């Protein structure tokens, strides 16, 4: 049943789940970015919330730890007046042997309206959405908050929102994504989104061990020399180097990594003079990014955090209403 249909879109083409940016039409991506625009100005209000999701129950299902992403989803849901329930799944049912879909069925029986799902297995949010559809509960929505190495679509969207905010037109940009692309669902989601929106020049920069094989198939150019890769680009997206991977055979040492792939003022000077610097956080100062750059005037790392709340509000209010 429903074979071939993009499971994120309802029969009328409206967004009902957000699972990945891959295969999402440009018009849908742009409508999410547009919908986020009014949510970005909430600081002016005495009451920093709107009643859109009043009475809706949003379940944060984090099978993998992430305080930051979980918190931003929680803030976004609360600003939409939803009731938010945080489940620390690692410490509860699954460790007692319950399957993922049994957990979902139980929570639907508690009248859940939306699941925000983070899982170490690629495809888990997709599995949940397909299960809900197959069992006739399409009024329950799923938002992917990061699955394995696959996708982190709200991070991709907030990166796109940030790029559009500062640079306006995707069709005239050079964007460099630097670092551990291999393990990064953030990079994957952003690259898909940039391609869909017609960005002509996307580059990935990193050591051979951290760039996935056949990444050129995603329409990007690969650089192992950071200086060459940064030349004349408009946007630099630094990825977090996951410390746990430093111990493996992928990298010699943090110091060595910083020397070649850390963003310093010297390397930043090779990009365009108005290039912006982004980072999904949490950042490792002195490993992938130098403090003067992170705190410098070209850094838009903190605005990214603010935009992230607005983008998540937009996604939740769109899927819940469709």
């Amino acid at each position, binding site marked *: 049943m429903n074979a071939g249909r993009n499971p994120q879109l309802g029969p009328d083409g*409206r967004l009902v789940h957000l699972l990945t940016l891959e295969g999402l039409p440009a018009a849908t991506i742009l*409508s999410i970015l*547009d*919908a986020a*625009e*009014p949510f*970005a*100005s909430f600081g*002016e*209000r*005495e*009451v920093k*919330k*709107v*009643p*859109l999701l009043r009475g809706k129950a949003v379940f944060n299902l984090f099978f993998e730890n992430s305080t930051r992403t979980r918190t931003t989803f929680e803030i976004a849901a609360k600003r939409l007046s939803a009731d938010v329930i945080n489940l620390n799944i690692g410490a509860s049912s699954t460790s007692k042997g319950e399957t993922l879909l049994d957990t979902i069925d139980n929570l639907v029986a508690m009248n859940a309206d939306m699941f925000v799902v983070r899982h170490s297995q690629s495809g888990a949010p997709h599995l949940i959405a397909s299960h809900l559809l197959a069992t006739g509960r399409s009024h329950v929505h799923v938002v992917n908050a990061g699955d394995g190495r696959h996708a982190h679509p709200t991070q991709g969207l907030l990166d796109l929102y940030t790029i559009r905010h500062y640079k306006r037109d995707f069709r005239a940009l050079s964007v460099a994504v630097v670092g551990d692309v291999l393990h990064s669902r953030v990079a994957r989601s952003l690259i898909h989104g940039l391609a869909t929106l017609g960005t002509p020049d996307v580059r990935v920069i990193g050591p051979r061990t951290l760039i996935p094989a056949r990444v050129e198939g995603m329409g990007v150019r690969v650089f192992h020399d950071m200086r060459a890769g940064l030349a004349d680009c408009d946007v630099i997206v630094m990825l977090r180097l996951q410390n746990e991977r430093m111990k493996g055979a992928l990298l010699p040492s943090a110091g060595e990594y910083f020397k070649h792939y850390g963003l310093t003022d010297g390397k930043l000077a090779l990009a365009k003079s108005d290039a912006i610097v982004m980072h999904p956080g949490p950042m490792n100062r002195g490993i992938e990014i130098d403090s003067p750059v992170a705190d410098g005037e070209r850094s838009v790392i903190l605005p990214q955090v603010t935009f992230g709340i607005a983008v998540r509000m937009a996604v939740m*209010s*769109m899927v819940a*209403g*469709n």
Partner: protein
Amino acid sequence: MSADPPGVHLPDAERALETLASSLLTGVAHDAAFVGIYSGGAWLAERLGKLVPGEHPVGFIDVSFYRDDYASRGLKTGARRSDLPFDVAGATIVLIDDVLYTGRSTRAAINELFDFGRPRAIELAVLVDRGGRELPIEPDYVGVRVACARSLSIVLSRDAAGRLSLGAEPAGGG
């Protein structure tokens, strides 16, 4: 002028605006803020801010997030940022809309205003009152009253020169 569609006689929007302006002139506080509901009400607020003497800060409000049909229709596309460049707390506010019908947009706008602060008073000015209220809401200032078939929506348009006109289209679009 194009002919009226069946079911409604459409008055001239510019003349209705003059009537509305003169009725505000006699009744409104000299420092009342004019807040237009996007998009038609916003055009009117801009015009009235210039037409009506006094100190009238002009603001705009988008009620998309406060509508009562979100559950059945979903999020309205093209929502704008509400922009109220004055302190809502303690302000006298004239809420301005193009067409008053069920009163549901007005209800949504009042709710939203209170999320910015506690106004001293809120009044309601509309270009067209077509009756058909579903909530206990009445306008304080009216440009023109129109009888209209339920199957039609009355819409305000603005041309490149800024001139306003009224049209009708089948109801149900939002």
